[in-house]
């Protein structure tokens, strides 16, 4: 390690923070640690920096964070790496109510390519964001949790308000395949009256035991023989597709003393058939806007396949 150069680097970084530190003093400390105490180089650097930070009462984050200012500006749909530091420019699509004391704000931010959940922690001391306004989130961390990506804003992050309007992308995806399963959590469910989350065993993750509101939905798995696609089909479409109304479903469940009968009914009437679905993609799921059952054989395709097979023989 070149002591002079390292000392200069340290001095330069501190002067960016508005502190003038004597170069001799830095050199002396480095020298002592390296030659007398035989401390490893990076440890010596750390130790000297920390000494001056303490001396001048500067937080570690403000010293180190600007080193990470060169994080890439990314589009939401391109986020794919757990632990990656990025900057994201987008519009606040939704702010959620949050009850956790260490969380300041939580919600969804969206750009042209999609939306992602973000969490702004209280100890990050960042300004408030408002729904429908555009911001750049600088230096935020991508985390993968439960197979979903989310953004975390921490002490080293910053928020810049932007003037431009961003159209949040609802990239519509279409998928054709057989419905091969209906997952648990489908059929007749109850939702939390406060936050609309689906209840598990009569309790909301956020609000505990609540008097739930009935709803009907399907979490289905579609499969085209090459890949699978999970999809969420909401109440209205479920009612049409399975020819059942929410009231019917409630009555069916009451009759059988079991909500599971609705799931069984859906499984029986819908599973094992071919469908084409389309809708916007949120994490693993397509939120289905349109669905129709495939019934007609594509005759041109059949003729094509036959001639393809004849060529291969």
């Amino acid at each position, binding site marked *: 390690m070149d002591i002079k150069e390292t000392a200069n680097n340290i001095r330069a970084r501190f002067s960016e923070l508005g502190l003038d530190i004597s170069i001799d003093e830095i050199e002396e400390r480095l020298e002592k640690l390296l030659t007398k105490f035989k401390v490893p180089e990076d440890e010596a650097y750390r130790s000297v920096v920390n000494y001056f930070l303490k001396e001048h009462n500067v937080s570690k984050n403000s010293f180190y964070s600007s080193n990470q200012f060169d994080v890439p500006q990314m589009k939401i749909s391109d986020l794919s790496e757990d632990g990656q530091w990025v900057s994201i420019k987008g519009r606040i699509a939704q702010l959620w109510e949050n009850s956790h004391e260490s969380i300041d704000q939580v919600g969804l931010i969206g750009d042209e390519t999609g939306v992602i959940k973000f969490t702004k922690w209280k100890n990050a001391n960042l300004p408030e964001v408002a729904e429908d306004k555009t911001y750049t989130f600088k230096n935020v961390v991508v985390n993968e949790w*439960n*197979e979903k990506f989310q953004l975390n804003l921490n002490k080293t992050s910053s928020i810049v308000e932007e003037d431009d309007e961003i159209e949040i992308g609802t990239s519509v995806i279409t998928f054709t395949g*057989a419905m*091969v*399963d209906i997952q648990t959590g489908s059929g007749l469910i109850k939702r939390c009256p406060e936050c609309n989350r689906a209840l598990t065993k009569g309790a909301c993750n956020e609000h505990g035991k609540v008097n739930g509101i009935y709803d009907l939905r399907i979490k289905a*798995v579609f*499969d085209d*023989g*090459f*890949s*699978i696609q999970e999809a969420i089909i909401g109440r209205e479409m479920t009612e049409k597709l399975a020819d059942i109304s929410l009231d019917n479903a409630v009555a069916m469940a009451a009759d059988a003393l079991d909500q599971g009968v609705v799931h*069984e009914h859906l*499984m*029986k009437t819908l*599973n*094992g*058939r*071919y469908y084409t679905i389309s809708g916007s993609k949120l994490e693993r799921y397509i939120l289905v806007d349109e669905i129709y059952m*495939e*019934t*007609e*054989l*594509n*005759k041109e*395709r*059949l*003729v094509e*396949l*036959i001639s*393809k*097979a*004849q060529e*291969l*023989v």
Partner: protein
Amino acid sequence: MRGYVREVAQRIFAQEFRESNLSFKDGDDIYAPQYLLTPTAAKVNRLFIVGTLTETEDIGTETEYWRGRVSDPTGSFLVYAGQYQPEAAQMLSECETPSFVAVVGKPTTFTTQEGDIITSVRPESINVVDEGTRDLWVMDTAENTLDRIEVLDETQPNIVKANEHYNTDKKYYVELVLKALESLEEEVIR
């Protein structure tokens, strides 16, 4: 770390399924998924079948154990459901024959005393469907099988493995597909 990833349901005609006998595990631990490698190198941990349920029979001794035959234009699949597949077993016990059914299930193999390997299906679900769905499946499966046959000269490990084990005759499987497609064609024209 990526969590659990659901296995894709492969499309295989009955005859190719019956001629498959190479099963293996991906990895060493006891929870590693089991696969059946078919002659056209489909790596099957789950399959989707639509065909005609032609026979059902309770072959259990103490508890019910149902066997169903599901046939497609090339042959038939054997489907076995017992106490651990209660919905499917009930379905087989109630279902009229013949009727069109869709089956999602896992491939299983059984070795006879003579050393022959018999393949069958352990159903996750069985649905009564209509003829249209069956036709779509035949075309879907024909397309998938042709796609596999087309890449059979490539050098991916599973393709090499399938060729070595079965010495796959491409022409034979193309003819199988053709037979299935022609059965559809007759029906569509009819």
